[in-house]
């Protein structure tokens, strides 16, 4: 479908970006949060996370099923949780220094009203991690 000059201004390309940052054990940070009004649609197109380093020691996880660090996408205002419990809609999980990207060919769409939150989590009880998050979403108003 062609995009007209009147509809194009209602399409917003929005960042999900966190430069390299140190995240303490069991801590989390909201990287981005978008509130969707009724009729609005959010498309997640590119989302990547890099684990740059972990402090020395043996990692013990808070949530065993997740990586040592993860980027979780939560809906419904999950941001109010101080420490996410490892139940995101989907996530990027890393346990060794590396970079991972969600498959951009799979469509991930959310419809309003809702609140979509991107949370980076250090899932370890003892070790500090250095992470980086990069991504982009399209908001159709």
């Amino acid at each position, binding site marked *: *479908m062609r995009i007209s000059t009147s509809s194009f201004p209602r399409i917003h390309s929005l960042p999900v970006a966190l*430069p390299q940052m140190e995240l303490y054990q069991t801590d989390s940070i909201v990287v981005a949060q978008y509130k969707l009004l009724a009729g609005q649609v959010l498309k997640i*197109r590119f989302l990547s996370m890099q684990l740059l380093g972990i402090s020395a020691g043996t990692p013990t996880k808070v949530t065993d099923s997740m990586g040592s660090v993860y980027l979780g996408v939560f809906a419904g205002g999950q941001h109010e949780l101080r420490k996410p419990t490892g139940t995101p809609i989907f996530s990027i999980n890393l346990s060794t220094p590396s970079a991972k990207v969600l498959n951009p060919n799979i469509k991930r769409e959310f419809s309003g009203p809702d609140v979509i939150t991107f949370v980076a989590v250090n899932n370890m009880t003892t070790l500090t991690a250095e992470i*980086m998050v990069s991504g982009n979403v399209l908001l159709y108003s």
Partner: protein
Amino acid sequence: MSYLTDEYLDKVVDIPVNLPVTNLKSNDWLVLTTIAVAAGQTLDFNFLQLTLVSSSASLDGCNSVEGELINPSYERVFVGIYENYVSTNSPYGLSIIGTDADLIQTSEFTTVQRDVTVAKLTLSPTEPTTYSFVIANNLTNSDLRVSVNGMARLTI
């Protein structure tokens, strides 16, 4: 002239390369973003601004003190693009990809940006490759406060 379609727009992703004003210690660096590009995908780079806000020590104009710079080939602060970068490696001696126009650097309190009149950098790897944008403080003796705003365009 071709038209913009929603199908095309879905395949073009503008990825932020962003750093709010941050204190960057001497001889230190930060990864701003890492973009994994699969075979068949294309990454275009054309726009980035780097601002040097302040420093912990007085910077005497643009005349660098001998021994002040870690890598004398670069200015006091720079943003470079690295291929398959490993964060434990110091970026000062590694090869930066692209041309001189793709290395954004300054030694003065100002905002510099990539010359948009120079042809964009286009990367089309034949195997999965990660490209990292890294900002580095090239000084041995002064902390710098810097900010970055830019983007790279990934075509899926």
